[in-house]
């Protein structure tokens, strides 16, 4: 088994990781050669982070084996991983803003160190790799790209043989990303392997030598990305075996119930996507789905439509013809709109509150049976809660449990059921079946379609293309805060959606420029 010059630097063989009833990794095998840039692709929740955390020693596998340079290893913790020569750059940096670059790096160095020597080394290594860093600079003053450099240099100082990068370009400008690619190519030439996690398929095609694609915890393909197209990679990620069950329904020419008209919303923080000139009409009786890779403005769009972040002008959004851009979330609910956010716990529901209390959360201003003269009518909430539980078959341990005690799928059924129970004229759902098991997904999708057939307008924001084809009459794609035109679901292919998702925004801007 042990060879002198093993072909693979790292091998993960038949790795299984089970969380409760969820098989996050199901017989995953991944092989990384020395010096290669290996892309690790998959949708949100496909199990990428789980495997990477096991490689880095932050999680232990339920079964399966890891080999390092051909030898079986048991990586008990991140320190052990670093000792082997594995470095990791996380998506969310772990830096102390008030400390200097050198101090931050010193904190992660094992054993004693000499600050002056370390600073000198940081300056040298960072310069060598074209990642200029000033060791005495305070982190708070640095840009996101510079902060990432600190994390990378911190890994490089330990002379890693394998560098794991978790969506490194998600926070970078295109120019910063280009610089990063230069560094990664150089590392690769020097023999350091890179495990590169990303959603951005064009990047993967550009810099990666090999790609392993994960879907629902299973490896579905291992391909050479340079021979693939972005669209074919996208198809692999979401499943080549998509059975398009969607049949075109009679196009109802109803009135526009939800209308977005040149909706603009500036970014209000460093990780927030700016929404630019979004226009869309959702008619009575139809479901429109917005596809897109995570982090391209979906949650910002949801906040703008729900009114959690009010808009500058009333005309930017209308419900049933009523301009409502500056109304708050309850005023919008009172005109018949309902909203289901992506995050169930802590956004759609309060984790430590009982289900009946969570009914009050979104219905206190629209439902007269819940609040009288400012006092809660607990009986009213229980009636609603039990009705939702029955209608959506919410499984639970006791009559009125805390929201956090429910499984993801059951809580999602409850959160969606709570809104559907109001028979809303307009429903906006962000990621309706994210992290939800197949049975609950089917129930939820059916309920969404049924609502629209009763004359409501439904807008679904989703990353799951299976789901989009299953529920949508028309499809639009969001990328970098811009929305494409809408297409009839039977007129747009998976390849076209993949292209729109993968980087079509430049194309789109060019087209806009051309038509302007």
């Amino acid at each position: 088994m042990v060879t002198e010059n093993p072909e693979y630097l790292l091998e993960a063989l038949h790795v299984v990781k089970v969380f409760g009833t969820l098989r996050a990794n199901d017989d995953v095998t991944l092989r990384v050669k020395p010096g290669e840039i290996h892309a690790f692709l998959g949708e949100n929740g496909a199990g990428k982070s789980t495997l990477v955390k096991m490689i880095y020693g932050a999680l232990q596998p339920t079964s399966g084996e890891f080999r390092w340079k051909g030898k079986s290893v048991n990586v008990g913790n991140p320190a052990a991983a670093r000792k082997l020569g594995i470095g990791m750059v996380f998506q969310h940096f772990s830096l102390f803003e008030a400390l200097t670059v050198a101090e931050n790096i010193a904190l992660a160095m094992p054993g004693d160190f000499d600050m002056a020597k370390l600073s000198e080394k940081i300056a040298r290594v960072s310069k060598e790799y074209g990642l200029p860093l000033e060791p005495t600079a305070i982190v708070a003053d640095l840009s996101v790209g510079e902060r990432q450099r600190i994390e990378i240099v911190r890994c490089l100082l330990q002379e890693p043989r394998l560098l794991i990068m978790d969506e490194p370009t998600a926070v970078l400008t295109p120019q910063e990303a280009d610089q990063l690619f230069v560094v990664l190519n150089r590392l690769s030439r020097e023999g350091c392997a890179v495990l590169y996690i990303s959603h951005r398929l064009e990047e993967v095609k550009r810099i990666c030598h090999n790609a392993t694609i994960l879907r629902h915890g299973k490896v579905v393909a291992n391909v050479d990305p340079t021979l693939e197209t972005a669209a074919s990679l996208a198809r692999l990620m979401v499943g080549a075996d998509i059975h398009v069950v969607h049949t075109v329904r009679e196009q109802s020419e109803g009135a526009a119930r939800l209308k977005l008209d040149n909706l603009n919303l500036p970014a209000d923080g460093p990780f927030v996507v700016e929404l630019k000139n979004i226009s869309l009409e959702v008619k009575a009786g139809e479901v429109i789905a917005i596809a897109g890779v995570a982090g391209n403005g979906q949650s910002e769009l949801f906040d703008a439509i729900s009114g959690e972040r009010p808009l500058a002008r009333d005309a930017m959004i209308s419900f049933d013809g009523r301009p409502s851009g500056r109304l708050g979330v309850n005023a919008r609910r009172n005109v018949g709109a309902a909203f289901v956010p992506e995050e169930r716990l802590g956004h759609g529901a309060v984790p430590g509150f009982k289900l009946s209390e969570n009914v009050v959360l979104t219905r206190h201003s629209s439902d007269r049976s819940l609040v009288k003269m400012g006092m809660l009518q607990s009986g009213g909430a229980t009636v609603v809660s039990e009705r939702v539980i029955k209608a959506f078959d919410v499984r639970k341990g006791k009559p009125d449990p805390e929201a956090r005690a429910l499984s993801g799928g059951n809580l999602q059924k409850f959160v969606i059921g709570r809104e559907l129970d109001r028979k809303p004229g307009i429903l906006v759902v962000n990621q309706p079946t994210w992290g939800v098991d197949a049975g609950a997904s089917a129930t939820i999708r059916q309920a969404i379609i049924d609502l629209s057939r009763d004359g409501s307008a439904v807008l679904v924001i989703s990353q799951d293309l299976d789901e989009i084809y299953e529920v949508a009459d028309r499809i639009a794609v969001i990328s970098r805060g811009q929305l494409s035109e809408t297409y009839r679901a039977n007129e747009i292919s998976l390849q076209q959606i993949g292209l729109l998702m993968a980087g079509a925004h430049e194309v789109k801007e060019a087209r806009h420029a051309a038509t302007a």
Partner: protein
Amino acid sequence: MRLLLEKRSEHSHTMVYLSPVIAIGLTLVTGAIIFAFDGLNPLEALYVYFLEPLKYLWTFAPDDLWSLEQLAVKAAPLALIGAGLSVSYLANVWNIGAEGQLTAGAIFGSAIPVMFPEWQSPLTLVLMLVFGVLGGMAWASIPAFLKNRFGASEILTSLMLVYVAGLLLDWLVRGPWRDPGGHNFPQTIAFSDWQLLPSFDGTLHIGTLFAVIAAAALTVLMGRSLKGFEIRVLGASPRAGRFAGFSRKGAVWFCFMLSGGLAGLAGISEVMSTVGQLQPSISPGYGFTAIIVAFLGRLNPIGALVAALALAISYLGGEAAQVSLQISDKIAKVFQGILLFYILACDSMILYRPRLIFNRAPAAVPAE
């Protein structure tokens, strides 16, 4: 072997109520050790400190009733402030400056007898109380405004304003408000008649009733009203609060006005009863001790009432310990600090289950 905290799926209702009991037990054990180091008999010292004030409960001797009344009088401001702070802390609004709001309430309310010493009518009493509440609110409005407008940490601003209020009081009683006939003592004129709260029998005054009424009213507010629901949601999950259309800024104002107003009421009530005039020191740190009351009472207004009685014992015991054990009454502060420390530590068991793990060291990496 190591200790592991395992997350529970729901919070443990048993631990919510057991945690303060364990904390009190640990505080007593620690206290006994401290007494032993001081060369005292720990059991005797604990008896003097914690049980002697309650002697009436088993002796029924009329002479012992006095200390029980003292207990109620000391518990009243603690419960009043603690109930308000409970609501604040549930909303994640950290008003640490109740002591300053108490002082401001005492100053505002006392302005009436100081400026119009001759005015005696039932209205005097009512107006003094109202001014006391308004004074506490006014003082609390400063950190609320700074928080909402500039994002300044209310923990720091409200705490620092305690010292500003203390110095303001000091200046007033030594300067403009000093009793002209008071032989230069730093105090205002002694209040009389309608400038004082009526008492039942000399010690116990109607201020204790305010605490009971406030606890009952706040229990209804938090448990039954939409406002209380809003406060709880915003404290538990700000993002869900925004989704429910509740205003974070509104909650900050509401909590500071409520807790500040109650602290002001406690302050003016103290001045109108136990103290009887303004002087440089009007409270043995009720505003700070009430923070412990709030946590010991499980951030529940009725709980605060019970916890206030427990903390009041530490004040009475401190006085008793000074007299019969010859130790500094600062020991009361030591006990209060230890108690808060243990409550916060034990509260982690509400959401986590402690478990001892034997022999499961992280698996080693084979040598290369």
